[in-house]
């Protein structure tokens, strides 16, 4: 029996993507919790950025429904405009960003805009927000998504936020300054781009999940990295930090 939920494992895996001293586009929900864990463990000097115009050192003390809520602004490092904070990103000063989406494909392109035809979509998704900017400009992109066949697809119908586009050096040719997707964290596994095509490969499988299950739930013929392993479980320190932040056990359910 593990002493952590799948979502808690995902949060810890995400937290490990943050290095000390880095400036991170945090986003809401799971990533903001991951940011809090990273600050309390290995990255005490990380800085969290929010596209509405907020930058913080310490994570907010109090429940956040949106990045604009009072607790995210009280005691912030900076409350300012969108251009100032997203400008740090555009200006090359942001190390990593977290984004999610409805669909991601084998080259890490993300769709949060349209399922189906643009002019007559089957599903009109809410849209891009700042995700394309983060995907284009951050040094590393961390993608978080639930591992289902209709979400991890061969090719997204609409590239809201660019990954490696058609793979290989397509991203570089398109003139994108940021490094592109570095990792894709799901509720079953961790995937990373690998080889000259930059196609996402299986990097590790979460404890309790199987290779077969992962393959069945991926929308393309997922290949494995040479050293594919089990996702390292949370350490005691990481879980202690997470429990400190998530006092009410929201992510334990």
């Amino acid at each position, binding site marked *: 029996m593990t002493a952590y939920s799948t979502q808690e494992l995902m949060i810890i895996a995400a937290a490990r993507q943050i290095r000390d001293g880095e400036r991170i586009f945090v986003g809401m929900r799971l990533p903001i919790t991951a940011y809090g864990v990273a600050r309390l463990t290995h990255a005490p000097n990380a800085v969290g950025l929010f*596209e509405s115009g907020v930058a913080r050192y310490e994570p907010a003390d109090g429940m956040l429904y949106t*990045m604009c*809520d009072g607790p995210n602004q009280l005691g912030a490092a900076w409350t300012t405009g969108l251009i100032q904070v997203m400008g740090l990103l*555009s200006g090359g000063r942001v190390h990593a960003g977290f984004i999610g989406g409805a669909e991601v494909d084998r080259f890490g392109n993300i769709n949060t805009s349209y399922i189906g035809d643009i002019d007559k*979509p089957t599903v*009109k998704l809410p849209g*891009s927000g*700042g995700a394309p900017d983060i995907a284009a400009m951050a040094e590393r992109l961390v993608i978080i998504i639930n591992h289902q066949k209709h979400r991890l697809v061969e090719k997204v119908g609409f590239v809201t936020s660019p990954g490696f586009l058609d793979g290989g050096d397509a*991203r570089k040719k398109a003139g994108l300054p940021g490094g592109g997707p570095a990792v894709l964290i799901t509720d079953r596994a961790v995937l990373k781009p690998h080889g000259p095509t930059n196609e996402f490969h299986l990097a590790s499988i979460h404890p309790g999940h199987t290779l077969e299950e992962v393959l069945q739930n991926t929308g393309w013929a997922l290949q494995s990295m040479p050293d594919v392993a089990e996702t390292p479980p949370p350490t005691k320190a990481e879980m202690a930090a997470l429990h400190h932040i998530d006092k009410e056990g929201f992510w334990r359910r």
Partner: protein
Amino acid sequence: MILNPYPKIDLSRTIRLGDKPISSHKLTSLAEAIAAFVPDGAAIVLGAALENAVPFAATHELIRQGRRDLNMIAPISDISTDMLIGAGCVAEVTGAWVGNVSGGMGHNFRRAAEHCLPNPIKINDYSNFTLGMAFFAGAYGLPYVPVKSILGSDILKSNPKIKLAEDPFSGEPVALVPALKPDVTFLVVQRADRDGNAHIWGSTGLTQEASIAASKIIVLADEIVAPEVIASDPSRVLVPGFVVDAVCHVPAACHPAPLIGKWRRDNAFFHDYHKETRDPEDFARWCAEWVRDLPDHAAYCSKLGSQLEDLRILGNAPAAAANYAIA
């Protein structure tokens, strides 16, 4: 005298409200301001600050006045745009995100985009940063801004206004985002004087650029204060009073969104809206109850009653003092 090829600046924007004389102040009711400055078909910004300080009181008043064919421009404005779409007020949506930050998707936005209900809408896609640059260009007289951060995105296909080009300095690809000039921008501020001079604190999203880019600016002030209060701290002014067209005293204009130091977010209200607007009939019922059947924002606040009072911020976390003395 010389021939002036320059488009005349409309003096009325700073010194008149409707037919009031030039020495008058700009304080008016929200209903009057909207009647005077927002025609059918206008391109308007409601909620340039993203998820705080959303001018929901103006959203409701636009619905009550039955405005049609609006172009709603905003980076992210939570459920404000969704309400206006459901009420049949919207022909175009220009921005980066439309939905319900607490509940997920916006049912009315989906219905309009997927099924043309209650009417078809045109969608002009932007990312947050490119929309910011479009407002910046509109505000400060730049014809366009060359941006890297939208390269590789299919937004370049869905929004043909943004042109792919070559940077003549480096030869690298760049996307040219043309200036965007709204007809009217609404903004919610913590306090203003009756001439439109206002203080805002907390994060501001694209409020400054969206306001300066607009032909008309309507301020919704949580509190009206003496001019001396605003003048005591001119660095806390985001948009100067002399470009503001109307000031409306509308406490809790932001509900259910938060306003820093004044009102907390009513998260349950967003969830309820999500549940209660799944079908067009449900939305019509919701809209009648919370908007159409109420005469104004004061009635909306009364209807909320203690639910609103519970969101009022009573504590004090004061900003450190700042001194402007000259001797």
